[in-house]
């Protein structure tokens, strides 16, 4: 927790991610912070949020935070448990899922993500886990929320590897590659929120969290970060949000 606040930067990031989810829509959830945010949303403003985990659990309603995407609590509480090919083909690829969450080791200014390798692919400095479901989430969810801690090491000028496409090299690339989802709607960090410029799709700082100055976000970015004329100020977490989140993460 930073001085003067009653919450951590990660908690603020989870709360902000949670708020971006729309009640009554379907959300493709990965483990970790996305699962925290989605479960927080379902317990606060979005009780009708449909949680879909890539293990094949449609409409899971876990009463605690699942510890993996294949946690038994997901199967036990789901409306339906389907096979892995079905979740990717009939549900994700078909464009039925509104929100996908992504994160990564590296992000560039056009919302492209690297989760594959640091260094050369054939001679890696650090071999990362790889694609998983991310490339197709990036391609096919109606919109993508990227959640990542902001740093010069991770918000980079040039990715070592494009694992999941944001806006490629700019407007028109998603269409050219036949990607039918809308791409990144915003990037929620521990410092603020970045949104793609409607014209050229470059990520722009549009909001900062309480206690954060835009300069801090610029400082933590490996490219010259654009800042909106008047960045908004994220409302602080409410007592309810913090309470629910903490009960989720400590249970």
């Amino acid at each position: 927790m930073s001085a003067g606040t009653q919450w951590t930067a990660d908690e603020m990031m989870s709360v902000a991610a949670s708020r971006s989810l729309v009640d009554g829509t379907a959300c493709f959830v990965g483990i970790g912070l996305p699962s925290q945010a989605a479960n927080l949303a379902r317990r606060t403003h979005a009780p009708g949020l449909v949680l879909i985990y890539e293990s094949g659990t449609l409409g899971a309603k876990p009463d605690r935070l699942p510890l993996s995407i294949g946690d038994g609590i997901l199967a036990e509480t789901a409306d339906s448990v389907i096979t892995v090919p079905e979740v990717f083909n009939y549900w994700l690829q078909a464009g039925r899922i509104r929100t996908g969450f992504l994160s990564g080791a590296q992000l560039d200014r056009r919302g492209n993500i690297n989760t594959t390798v640091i260094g050369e692919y054939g001679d890696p400095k650090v071999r990362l886990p790889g694609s998983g479901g991310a490339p197709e989430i990036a391609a096919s969810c109606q919109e993508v929320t990227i959640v990542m801690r902001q740093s010069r090491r991770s918000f980079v000028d040039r990715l070592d590897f494009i694992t999941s496409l944001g806006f490629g090299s700019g407007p028109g690339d998603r269409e050219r590659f036949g990607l039918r989802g809308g791409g990144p709607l915003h990037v929620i960090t521990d410092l603020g929120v970045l949104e793609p410029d409607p014209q050229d799709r470059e990520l722009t700082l549009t909001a900062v969290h309480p206690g954060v100055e835009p300069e801090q976000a610029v400082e933590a970015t490996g490219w010259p970060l654009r800042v909106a004329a008047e960045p908004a100020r994220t409302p602080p977490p409410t007592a309810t949000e913090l309470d629910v989140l903490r009960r989720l993460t400590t249970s």
Partner: protein
Amino acid sequence: MAEIVELADGVAEVVRDGDEVAMEGFTHLIPFAAGHEVIRQHRRDLTLVRMTPDLIYDQVIGAGCAARLVFSWGGNPGVGSLHRFRDAVQHGWPRPLEIEEHSHAGMANRYAAGASGLPFAVLRGYRGTDLPAQTDTIKPITCPFTGEELTAVPALNPDVAIVHAQRADRAGNVQMWGITGIQKEAVLSASRSLVTVEEVVDELTPLPGAVVLPTWVVTAVAVARGGAAPSYAQGYYDRDNSAYQEWDAISRERDSFSAWLDGVRKVVA
């Protein structure tokens, strides 16, 4: 019809040096006991196939059984990296590991094509990413009706599939429930298969969400109680989350891993 055998005999029967082996189970029902038996039998030069290599392949790779890995996500779920996988890819220890890398959707469709007797599958995927430049089993394909360009991936047809299920009957029919992932496709795509089970029962009472693999598509069934631990078997035991944490420490250094490996090799299945 499946034969009901001892685990060691089943592994010896279906897994041979140089085989392409798919051990599947998506977080749930991961066939760890069979994986350890492969290690004990010192199999060599395997091509390992699995969507999420996970601890089970970190162990088999660290033990030096594998020459190649076909996969889509290589991490310790909820914990971090697979250190043995990394050490093999980054430093060639204990031997170099060739990789063939896909996405989950690509791997799932490759298994489905293999199970369907098709040479390839079509999906919306990979386009715009750097993966097709590294993986030659990703190619463009054009829709003959719309002209749209999509992606083709070849079928997976491993020599052997190994999965874990809750139970089988005495005839060798297999039943699993809960998250059943890609296991049916893995078994149906393979030439041979071994299913480890928690127990053999007289009758497979139908259950909600249960998937049945008929005995005539399974090569061998072996009882391996707790055979999915530290993953879980719904209705039998929970996931041992601390074991996933502890693996991070065990696997981080070659020495601590080698001590673990000695322990596994001493066990008689």
